[in-house]
């Protein structure tokens, strides 16, 4: 009787688990293993002739100064984008949970950039930076605005960061809103009675209690910005003169433009390891100081 029940349970378990595992295997694990296998070959992405070359691609990746430069640029981009988008998202969340008039409308408005695809967004901002702002600059005689931000290396990276922050803040704001609305009103009320200023309430009451939201937001923003590609492609295309080639774009160029698919995959695997390490470390350290309500 017991054995029959066990088998029955096992069958039911299998019915629910097998399809999910199958999907997970086919869309995540097998492609990952396939990708790892390609890193040990000289495949160009098209040829029917593939040779095993050992770890040559990995050696090439670490010897490639362009890859390392691109990685450093990406780290800078990630740092500034994560900092900027989280700060703005948090401030926006505070604003739209303060009970101000029309806050639902503002929430929707701030979230909208996130639902526009990165490619479209890139083209829109490309137009804004290259023609709208320069047009205003020329008409008003402002020299600094009369040339496109996208044609100067430092300004182009700044433009990329601005658009990333603009796009991601709304998304992160929603998570912060969820955290803030869960903060007990009694605690805030108590702090207020104790004479805490609005800033002190934010710093000493709200912020410690939404630590989990902060962890999630930083984790999400780090992973998203590390792998930022579509915006990079449509806004700057790595230019001017390869100065805004973020790591994902560099990988794309190696695989599809230079037709070094094996090396591109090796670069992608290095990026994967870095992103996983950074994300896990961040989650570990942020959670360690989390306050339980």
């Amino acid at each position, binding site marked *: 009787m017991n054995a029959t029940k066990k088998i029955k349970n096992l069958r*039911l378990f299998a*019915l*629910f688990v*097998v*399809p999910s595992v*199958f*999907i997970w295997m*086919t869309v995540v694990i097998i492609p990952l293993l396939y990708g790892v296998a390609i890193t040990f070959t000289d495949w*160009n*992405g*098209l*040829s*029917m*002739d593939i040779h095993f070359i050992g770890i040559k691609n990995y050696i090439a990746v670490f*010897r*490639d100064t362009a890859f390392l430069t691109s990685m450093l640029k990406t780290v800078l981009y990630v740092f500034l984008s994560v900092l900027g988008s989280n700060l703005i998202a948090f401030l926006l969340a505070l604003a739209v949970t303060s009970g101000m008039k029309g806050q639902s409308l503002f929430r929707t408005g701030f979230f909208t950039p996130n639902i526009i695809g990165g490619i479209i967004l890139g083209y829109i901002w490309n137009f804004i930076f*290259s023609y709208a702002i*320069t047009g205003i600059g020329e008409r008003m005689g402002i020299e600094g605005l*009369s*040339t*496109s931000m*996208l*044609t100067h*290396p430092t300004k182009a990276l700044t433009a990329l960061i601005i658009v990333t922050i603009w796009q991601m803040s709304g998304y992160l704001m929603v998570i912060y809103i969820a955290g803030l609305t869960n903060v007990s009103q009694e605690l805030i009320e108590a702090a207020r009675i104790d004479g805490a200023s609005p800033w002190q309430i934010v710093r000493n009451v709200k912020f410690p209690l939404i630590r989990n939201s902060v962890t999630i937001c930083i984790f999400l923003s780090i992973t998203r910005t590390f792998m930022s590609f579509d915006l990079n*492609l449509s806004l700057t295309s*790595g*230019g*001017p*003169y*390869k100065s805004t080639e973020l790591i994902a774009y560099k990988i*794309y*160029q190696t695989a*599809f*433009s*230079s*037709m070094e*698919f094996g090396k591109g995959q090796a670069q992608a695997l290095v990026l994967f390891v870095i992103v996983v390490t950074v994300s896990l470390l961040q989650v570990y350290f942020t959670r360690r100081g989390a306050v339980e309500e």
Partner: protein
Amino acid sequence: MKRKWISVLLMIVMTASMLAGCGSKQDSGTPGAEPDNKAAAEKTDESAPADAKEVNISFYSTQTGIDDTYLDIIDHFEADNPGITVEYIAAGDDQLQKWMSLYASNEGPTVSLMDPINIWENQDRMREMTKEDCPWLDNILEESLVSYIYNDKLYGIPMSAAGYGLLYNQKVLDEAVGGTFDPASIKTRSDLEALFKKIEATGAAGSMFTGVNWSLGSHYLGALVYGPARGDVATRDAFVQAQKSGEANLIDDSLFNGLMDTFDLIAEYNYNKKDPLVGNVNMDAEALVTGKAGTWFMGDWAWVYLADLVAEGDSFGIIPIPYSDDPDDKFNTSIPLSYPKGYCVDASQNTEEQQEAGLKFIEYITSNEYAQKVSIDVGGQALPYKNCTAEIKSPLGQATQKYISEGKAYDIYDGSVNGLPSDFWYECGAYTCEYLAGACDRKQLSEKVGSYWKALEN
């Protein structure tokens, strides 16, 4: 209990549909079916009569701006060839990436329109075209096939002949020279400089660069510095090898320095000088048509951008890029030319039936009167097909045709399509853009290009 059974049923349906989705295609007429040509041929013999067969093929085009034209040609082709259906796939921003994705998903296009270097790199997948299979090959100009013959085997048919140089606005230049401007009057760099000065005197900019990798990297640096002006294929290969080993540097090369002197001259009179890397072909086309700039470094393919802007009576032409100050240098008075894209047929993921239908499609595009007419009207470029009688309406295409007929056009590949790697335009184009923006000097440009070659050697 009922709920449990509904859940179980849903799971079964989901799993079944998933497995069905993952199943392989069995339809031999679908692009991406297994590449066993022999098996496919046998299948053809055993199945229904040939006239009852439906063949689905796909056509991947990387030529931007003429999608509607190709769709129109496909409609006519399908009407003339019942039983053959052509699926049109237009390339996005990155032609190679999409091509590779199609192959990776086992949906390699039956016919692809690609650059010669791409066909060369993927030749092991391509079907060789022979006169036995394709008697219509006699209709293609022999010299245009050179870029598509590898190891004595033909793998592609050129789409058009494309000439480039400095496009000019006749009206602006007539005003500048105070008469009718003749491009043959420009034989040296000094002649070009004098012309630019005259144009500037009228209030228009002397010239214009579109600051993008493909124009500066591929058409200027790649095709001119590493092109036939250097010598025959062996000489060009030897120069590349010498750069890879570090024995040769561009900065010591007279051809490079001569061309970069001309580059500097164009950059000095550049309409986009203030912000040289904005790189918008549409806006530059508008600047040429409206007379804001007198000349523009571009090719006859730019007609697709100009055509909608030109007014009745406007005329345009092409001035060759002078390499030097020597009036007897034949390259100073000739335009660079290429057969930049070719139709090829995949033999690795398409059945014999599909390949034959693909060849039939190429025959139609290259030989049919209607297909030739619409291609010329929209693309504005000369077609390298002997039976072509369609008149080129584009003045730029007419200019290219004139240079060809006068023997004043040189094929930039000239028997060596693989002289430059497929990423040269992107990598070295970026360095040339950097040079145009004034962010590096000529010596640094030379070193950067040298590093590119050395990295390939390692």
